């Protein structure tokens, strides 16, 4: 076991550090800034372009696809160094790199790869994910949006929901039902869709945070050329799995608890500070222990990946604990600061961050695999326990109640 960089890794790190020092500062956002969405997307695209020019866009993507063909360790090293700057890295970039490219790379044709990979790496194309529907979330295979083949195009009708950043995306990855006579998972087909296509209507949904960065997306007689189908008809579920695997592996662990300790130390309490209080120490130390465990657990997962092994549902453990810990500890830190955290009398950036985290943690516990779903995955796929009884098993979709 060795936690130090190998000589090659150290060299790569030094190179990355130098490159970032030169290029990142010009793209940094002012701390605590809230930008309007369009501005944020523009800045995100510009940074992505910079990464492309530097040869750092798509580190894990194979060379044949136009990526760097690097190792997972290189991706981690880059990520660690990049995080030291406050850069615009939103889902509008992440969905393209982490979801669209892997699925196009694996299931797409050469033509599709040619059309989409390079512009996405360059930040010229942004993407949204059109998977979830009002009646299909955790149960994604229940999607009802229909595509019917007409000549050399598919005509799509239905409704998607929670489409993050769809209002600022050029293209979408879309899963729809092409065969209602087949059982749920089998009748699905995957597409990429130009978000400017006639018949697409995007309506913002207001979130509890006050922002509206996700949407309802209505599709009415949207014509998608056959050439934008990814994989074969009926291959939609396999494509979704490719996307969701990518989603899981991208989840990184950011150390937060140290900052909370500082926050406690900045809170006076009984002639000392809150950090001197035994109860505060116990809770923050417990959280810190868990956070460290997650960091080293992730290192184990990355080691597996670098050896070509698939961590599968083990990766769910990271997300499950991260989301809950974020909720638990941001709520706790508000309690530690006390009433001033409910309504600070001066603009305190850490307090604002806690509000953000306490709200955002609720979304994290739901999106991309909700807690309960992840627990099922861990118990069924890691522990080998039987799945829940399913009323929909083996039943053609159109015969389901």
């Amino acid at each position, binding site marked *: 076991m060795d936690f130090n960089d190998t000589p090659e890794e150290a060299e790569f790190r030094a190179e990355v550090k130098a490159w970032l020092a030169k290029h990142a500062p010009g793209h940094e956002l002012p701390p605590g800034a809230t930008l309007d969405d369009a501005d944020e997307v523009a800045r995100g695209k510009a940074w992505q372009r910079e990464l492309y020019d530097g040869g750092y866009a798509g580190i894990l993507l194979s060379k044949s696809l136009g990526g760097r063909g690097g190792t997972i360790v290189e991706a981690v090293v880059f990520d660690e160094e990049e995080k030291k700057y406050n850069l615009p890295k939103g889902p509008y970039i992440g969905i393209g790199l982490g979801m669209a490219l892997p699925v196009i790379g694996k299931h797409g044709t050469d033509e599709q790869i040619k059309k989409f990979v390079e512009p996405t790496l360059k930040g010229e194309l942004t993407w949204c994910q059109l998977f*979830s529907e009002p*009646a299909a*979330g*955790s*149960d994604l295979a*229940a999607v009802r949006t229909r595509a019917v083949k007409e000549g050399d195009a598919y005509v799509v009708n239905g409704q998607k*929901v*929670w489409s993050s950043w769809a209002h600022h995306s050029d293209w979408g990855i879309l899963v729809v039902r092409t065969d209602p006579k087949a059982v749920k998972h089998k009748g699905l087909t995957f597409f990429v869709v130009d978000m400017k296509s006639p018949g697409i209507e995007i309506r913002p*949904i*207001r*979130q*509890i945070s*006050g922002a509206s960065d996700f949407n309802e997306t209505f599709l009415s007689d949207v014509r998608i050329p056959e050439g934008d189908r990814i994989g074969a008809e009926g291959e939609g579920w396999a494509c979704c799995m490719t996307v969701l695997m990518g989603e899981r592996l991208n989840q990184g662990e950011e150390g937060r608890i140290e900052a909370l300790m500082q926050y406690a130390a*900045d*809170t*006076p*309490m*009984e002639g000392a500070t809150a950090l001197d*209080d035994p*109860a*505060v120490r116990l809770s923050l130390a417990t959280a810190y222990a868990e956070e460290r465990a997650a960091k080293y657990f992730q290192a184990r997962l990355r080691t597996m990946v670098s050896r070509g092994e698939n961590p599968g549902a083990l990766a769910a453990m990271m997300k499950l604990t991260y989301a809950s810990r974020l*909720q638990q500890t941001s*709520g706790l830190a*508000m*309690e*530690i*600061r*006390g*009433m*001033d*955290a*409910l*309504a*600070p*009398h001066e603009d305190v950036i850490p307090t604002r961050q806690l*509000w953000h985290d*306490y*709200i955002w943690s*609720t*979304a994290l*516990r*739901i*999106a991309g695999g*909700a*807690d*309960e779903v992840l*627990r*099922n995955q861990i118990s069924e796929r890691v522990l080998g326990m039987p799945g*829940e*009884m*399913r*009323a*929909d*098993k083996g*039943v053609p979709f159109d015969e*389901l*109640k």
Partner: protein
Amino acid sequence: MNFDLAEEQKMLAEQARGLLGKQSSPDRLRELIDAGAEWDEPLWASLSELGFPGARIPEEYGGLGLGDLDLGVISEEVGRAVAAVPFYASIVCAADAIQRFGSDEQKEAWLPRLACGEVVGTLAHAEGRQGWWPKSSSVSCRAGKLSGVKTPVGDAGIASLAVVYCAYEGKPALALVELDGETVERRKLDGFDQLRAHYALTFKDTPASLLEASVGDEDGLRTLTDRMSVQASFEAVGGAEACVYMARDYAMDRQIFGRSLASYQAIKHKLADILVATEFARSNAFFAGWASDNAPAELAVAAAAVRLSAINAYEQAARENLQVHGGIGYTFEADCHFHYRRERTLAITLGPRQYWADRLVTHVPGKQMETA
């Protein structure tokens, strides 16, 4: 043994629940947030018409002269509805402080007006990072003038009267201050709870009248906060119960993998555990409400116990209710967020859990002897 609410108390609760259910619907709450409203003034008027603000205020001062448990059942309904009214600030806190520490003139001057809802009061105790109730206040009262900063103060934008925790000749004290004068600066703060506004109050030689009986009475002040804790806990119990049933109803309607979401054990157990926590908190609340009226010697432990159990129940309930809703729960159009935010207010307003843990342990019978 009869450890149940009396018929009249049940009726009172029903009446409050009916009115709040009708006038303080989730849509109404959204409307208030959108309008940036400080409070639901028409609702306050309706509550006042039925005498709710005066429930615990003695009849001689225009109230109904009811007890702490009666007030508790109303607090519970306010919590269930996340109503945007200053019931806690004006009645639970300010009126109680005046009632317990005020002179006859002070009571005569203010209690009738608080009882009928015409005047809104608040209690200013916190001092920013120094805490919810600093041992020695940095706000001083000298020769009838108050100076210093209190922050954050709930509902201080609509209040015209504040009871201010301050220092008088080096001793802790409460002073009455009218907020409408030139010598008080009120600054609205950006707050986490969208239905209860908080303010920073700066006093500059503001005319103030001491609540004489409060001066140096540390035990009495603690009892006041015990009583506040009982009512805030009732509020939390109402909120927690609302969350449990909201989650239950949603799960019953939602189909996942060909089954009702409510049929999954993970969801059933989650909600069952929270219901247990809520019923336990309510039981502690009943006892604390009763003790507050009938067994003052037991109040400290009862108030601390209910505080700890009610915070815990509401915290779990508010979080898991949103969780059970999935993506919908994260939207403004769903009703989960009112509780998710209000829960933090109730958990934090009365100081850290350590304070209450300490109060509980030092007052558990037998322990007093040891530490004395």
